[in-house]
């Protein structure tokens, strides 16, 4: 029986940041401890370097988003366990770079939306409240009943409650399914939905990268791209990881208007778990081509300290903001 620590008190992000800024806790390891991702494996095996300070508290902060998983709130109802999430469609302006701001349609104020996480077989409930003017919806990938498929529009100022079982395990996604879907997705209504296998995967430094595109002038082409919402953010704010630490990367391509993106990791190779639906890797490579909505788990570790880029190898896409780097910190 999987011991569910998710339902225990969990600090909100702000509290968490305050503590970590106080320097009392290293951000990643303690965060994982709170999350209880690994049920029995010793968490001290996972070394996650602290994030560079100060952390800006904006809703869309790629460094925070990276390792933040939303496990919802666990409730008991009539003997059944329900994992309940709240998602609010809103509109807000996001400063993409010093020159360009974009009105986004988003969930809970952030692009991408929160990474929702559950275990296979959990009963999921998503209370979806649309406060964004247009009709919107949430369409989850996975197996569920037709009426929970998120095709029906949810009108402005109304609520729809999605409820289904989390299955099958893997890396999935959710997004708005109101036409034109291209516009509804590229304006920010998407996120990752991770369904963990019944027996947890081995401990690792787990993180999420979602590739997205922005059509800033409504010409049905992307002018800017980003990992986790903000163009080129991880170039100026490299992701700290520890030398020789296994990294488990949950990767999703959510770029509309372009056919595919070929994710490439510098100076390394990664194991591929296609759609996150296997427990053993299928193959090893350093480039993986993904169409829109494709996603995988990639695993790798770095042998040498230093900075290493990652980006889609459609280099025009990379140079328009879809690039970042890891900072491999030497093992002490």
């Amino acid at each position, binding site marked *: 029986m999987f011991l569910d620590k998710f339902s225990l008190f969990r600090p909100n992000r702000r509290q968490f940041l305050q503590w970590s800024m106080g320097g009392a806790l290293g951000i990643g390891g303690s965060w994982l401890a709170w999350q209880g991702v690994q049920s029995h494996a010793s968490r001290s095996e996972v070394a996650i370097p602290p994030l560079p300070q100060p952390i800006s508290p904006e809703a869309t902060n790629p460094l925070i988003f990276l390792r933040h998983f939303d496990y919802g709130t666990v409730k008991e109802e009539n003997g059944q366990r329900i994992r*309940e999430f*709240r998602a*609010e469609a809103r*509109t807000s*302006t996001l400063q993409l770079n010093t020159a360009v*701001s*974009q*009105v986004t*349609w988003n969930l809970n104020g952030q692009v991408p939306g929160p990474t929702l996480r559950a275990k296979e077989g959990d009963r999921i*409930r998503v*209370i*979806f*409240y649309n*406060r*964004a*003017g*247009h*009709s919107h919806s949430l369409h989850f990938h996975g197996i569920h009943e037709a009426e929970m498929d998120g*095709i*029906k*529009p949810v*009108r*402005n*100022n*109304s*609520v729809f*409650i999605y409820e289904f079982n989390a299955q099958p395990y893997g890396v999935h996604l959710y997004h708005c399914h*109101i*036409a*034109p879907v291209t516009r509804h997705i590229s304006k920010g209504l998407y996120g990752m939905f991770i369904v963990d296998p019944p027996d947890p995967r081995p401990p690792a430094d787990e993180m999420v990268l979602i590739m997205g595109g922005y059509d800033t002038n*409504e010409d049905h082409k992307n002018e800017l791209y980003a990992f986790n919402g903000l163009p080129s953010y991880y170039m100026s704010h490299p992701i700290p990881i520890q030398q020789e630490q296994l990294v488990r990367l949950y990767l999703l391509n959510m770029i509309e208007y372009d056919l595919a993106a070929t994710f490439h990791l510098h100076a390394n190779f990664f194991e591929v778990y296609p759609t996150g639906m296997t427990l053993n890797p299928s193959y090893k490579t350093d480039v993986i081509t993904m169409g829109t909505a494709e996603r995988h788990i990639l695993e790798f570790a770095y042998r040498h300290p230093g900075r290493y880029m990652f980006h889609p190898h459609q280099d025009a896409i990379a140079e328009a903001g879809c690039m970042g780097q890891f900072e491999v910190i030497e093992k002490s």
Partner: protein
Amino acid sequence: MIFSRRLWAVTASLALLAACGEATPPTSNTPLSSSTSPAASPMANNSHSMGHSKPININNAILSELDKLEAKLGIPALSNQIQASRPYGSTEELVSKKVLTQAQFDQIKDMVTIEDVVLEGEAKDVDYITKLGLMKGHLIVAHELLILNKPAQAEPHIGHPVEEIYADVEDQLTERNVPEFKTTLIRLQDLVKAGAKDPAKVKTEFQSSLKSVDQAIAILPETERQNPVFVLKVINGLLDTANSEYGAAIANNKISALIEYQDSRGFVIYAEELYQEIAPALAKTDPKVNAEIKKNLTTLKTVWPSVEAPAKPVKSPTEVTALIKNIEKLTTPLTQKSS
């Protein structure tokens, strides 16, 4: 004044359409009280007895529905409170979110739900007409853009009724024996997507789409469609959506999302058309309220000087919200009287 209906008709006759050298306005300007012969529709049996009516969905009910709870408990402005604290994962959250005390909740807990409720009576009709009204708003701006020979800009507004709204109202159309018009809307959309090359054809298709929506509206009995209180509820629904859309149009004090600016314009134009229909009756029954609504609407309309966005927003989203909330507040006493 671009908003005046007469001018709208005149502009309209310059239509697409000039090509056809015809002077009849292409839009039929349907007020809710159009003369299209309404098919018989089961008139709402508004049972006011609490015990027998369906529970109210606190997540989705319009203010006038929530007013039943306000009336029962005698708490001023409770309806707005309930709306402001959405969403609810369970009805008990009315207590945990401090909207009601446990004792108050106990008094009304049988009247509320978060389950999907099949609407009935007036609430159902308001919902139906509001959705069709949103379609009208979209078509109004689409039409303006077609006249300006901007089919690419018109296309999303022709798409929205079918993409966002139709599926939401489809069941009601079937139930009310309204012939389906999805194919009509899609035909127009295809034509405009293809570049709207033949003005005469676009005009014909546009007219069919508009007529379909008007016929769907005309299904409701005229008495209801001319009832000021009923119409005010629809107006509030349209303005509420216009408010959200306007907020989504503006970034850094610039109109950055033109589509949303135009959406909100269409909704306000149609809301104003509806208001003009009931203004004479309202002026007789509630002259003070009518004068105030008129004042707010007049100010509100200045925010959308034309279908093409002004260089700088006339008013901020906050100011627009305030005007729209004012109108809502003004209509509350009237709608409460009737429920």
